[in-house]
């Protein structure tokens, strides 16, 4: 089975299964997720169960909170769980024996990423009951549910690959972990910060209305998830992803409707309510960056004898 497909994956799965840390992480993950769900329910406890419209809104809110919290937790745990992938082997001096087998550098990276991915998969599956609860309350379709799980999985995989590549280039677990968390933080805040900076600059030059290239807002896992999962109508302010998507669309319409690379006003598309699939654009850019990182990581996994001919 897995040992055949990719020996590194098989070995990692065995090790992780025996290693208590995985279950500890799973426990914390589920605990926090349940807590978030509980807070949503608790905040709406006064609802009369015959008020179907409101019940539906609670279902929607619960769903989006679960997806958002899941995404944030994955972004919180992935760096910690993946940063040691290669740096740890270097520290324990187990990397070289592996490098001189017939495994190719990209197989090493893929094995590590697949192992981390399967753990993310486990986390996502463990969150299913809460999504089912949201579904039963209403306001969520099966498609919504799949989109939510899919986008969390996709973003999780991209981040895992980036962090594994960071680990491949690091000498020590400690520096790999710091770099990985730094990178993750950057991924999370770069877009909002860039957005604010551009807007401020734009305002100070007297432009009105203020125009920020929409792509800037989409280079962020949370906005990508919001765009993929949120309903454009916005719904209640309680449903975080829909609220965010609504805000983005409003900004876009204020902007004259340009999901453009740069601000321009030669076209008016504000009549379209659901614009360009921004999540796809954002994911493609993220995928490109990840591919570049993975390429550099694979290069770092070659032995010095093979490298730089």
């Amino acid at each position, binding site marked *: 089975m897995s040992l055949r497909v990719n020996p590194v994956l098989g070995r990692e799965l*065995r090790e992780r299964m025996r290693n208590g840390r995985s279950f500890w992480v799973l426990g914390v993950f589920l605990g926090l997720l349940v807590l978030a769900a509980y807070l949503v329910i608790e905040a709406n406890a006064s609802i009369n169960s015959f008020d179907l419209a409101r019940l539906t809104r609670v279902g929607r809110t619960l769903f989006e909170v679960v997806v958002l919290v899941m995404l944030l937790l994955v972004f919180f745990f992935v760096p910690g769980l993946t940063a040691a992938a290669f740096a740890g082997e270097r520290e324990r001096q187990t990397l*070289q*024996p592996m490098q001189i087998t*017939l495994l190719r550098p990209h197989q090493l990276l893929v094995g590590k990423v697949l192992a981390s991915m399967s753990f993310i998969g486990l986390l996502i599956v463990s969150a299913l009951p809460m999504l089912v609860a949201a579904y039963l309350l209403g306001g969520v379709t099966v498609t919504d549910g799949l989109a939510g799980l899919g986008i969390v999985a996709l973003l999780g995989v991209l981040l895992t690959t980036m962090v594994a590549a960071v680990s491949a280039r690091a000498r020590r677990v400690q520096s790999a972990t710091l770099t990985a968390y730094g990178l993750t933080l950057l991924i999370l805040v770069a877009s909002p910060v860039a957005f604010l900076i551009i807007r401020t600059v734009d305002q100070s030059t007297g432009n009105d209305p203020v125009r920020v290239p929409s792509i800037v807002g989409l280079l962020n896992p949370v906005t990508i998830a919001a765009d993929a999962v949120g309903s454009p109508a916005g719904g209640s302010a309680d449903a975080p992803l829909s609220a965010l998507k609504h805000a983005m669309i409003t900004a876009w319409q204020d902007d004259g409707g340009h999901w453009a690379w740069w601000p321009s006003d030669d076209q008016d598309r504000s009549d379209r309510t659901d614009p360009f699939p921004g999540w796809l654009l954002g994911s493609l850019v993220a995928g490109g960056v990840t591919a570049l990182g993975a390429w550099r990581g694979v290069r770092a996994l070659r032995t010095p004898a093979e490298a730089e001919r």
Partner: protein
Amino acid sequence: MTGHDPATISTVGPTAGPTAGPTANSTEQAVDTPGLAINTSQLCKTYGTLRAVDHVDLRVPTGSVFGLIGPNGAGKSSTLAMVATLLRPTSGSLEVMGADPRRMPRTVRRRMGYMPDALGVYDSLRVDEYLQFFAASYGIPRREWPELVDGLLELVDLGVKRSAMVNSLSRGMKQRLSLARALVHDPELLVLDEPASGLDPRARVELRELLAALNRMGKTIVISSHILAELEEMCSDVAIMEAGRLLASGPPRQIFDQLGAGRTIRVRFAGGETETHSVATDDEQAELLRRLVVDEGRAVVEFTEQSGGLEQLFLTITEGLVQ
């Protein structure tokens, strides 16, 4: 002992191992020599300004047990890492089983097993799973694993530990497991970096026997050490390194004779009295024994060449460089 010219010693050609036929004295720059498992020419490795390996011409005959000897920091590990496709030579040429590790690392990897001096082992893996992992990594079909793992564990005498966690093994056991790992793909060439360090005397003897058995199976073995007495018994050829330079290479006896280096004989007589004598050659040694027993009629109960004949040689040669 002063200033032996290393050049005269290092021209000693490789000797025939069990499988190699008579080999010509290879003073010429051999390129693609079929009788050589490892052939380096002017091999250098520098770390910054430090010359860790300095113009080394190493010729390891196919089928030999080759000892690489040198004090700490001599450049043994660096040399072996270059052979093992792990380190890139700064300059010079290098051929392992006829292939350049820089250009054809996978060809070399297929035919060479390497045991590093550092023992890295995984945290939560069983001994048999550890070997299965490496079998898979060398692309060995799954159906062959059980027999392979059984055979290897038996070979290194770890059968009883097959279900134990790798990190629970003693140092000596880890060492043997590491050796088993190097053998997973049945390589023709075994490169062992200080395999005997940390082993108890019994384990050393066992390792020696194991390596002798592997050599009889036709494998060429390169082993580095600073435990000289050990290498002396098992190696058909040795090379002595210091400060990155190859000071001498060839069969131990040949180096001895070229140097005219003395050996020390320890004689014990009935009653417990002991004496030590210095001799230079086998003839002198035989003459000494004859004199003691026949001429002087003394009750010799023990007549041994001091272990450390090689040690003596080593000290002699390395001393020569310092002066």
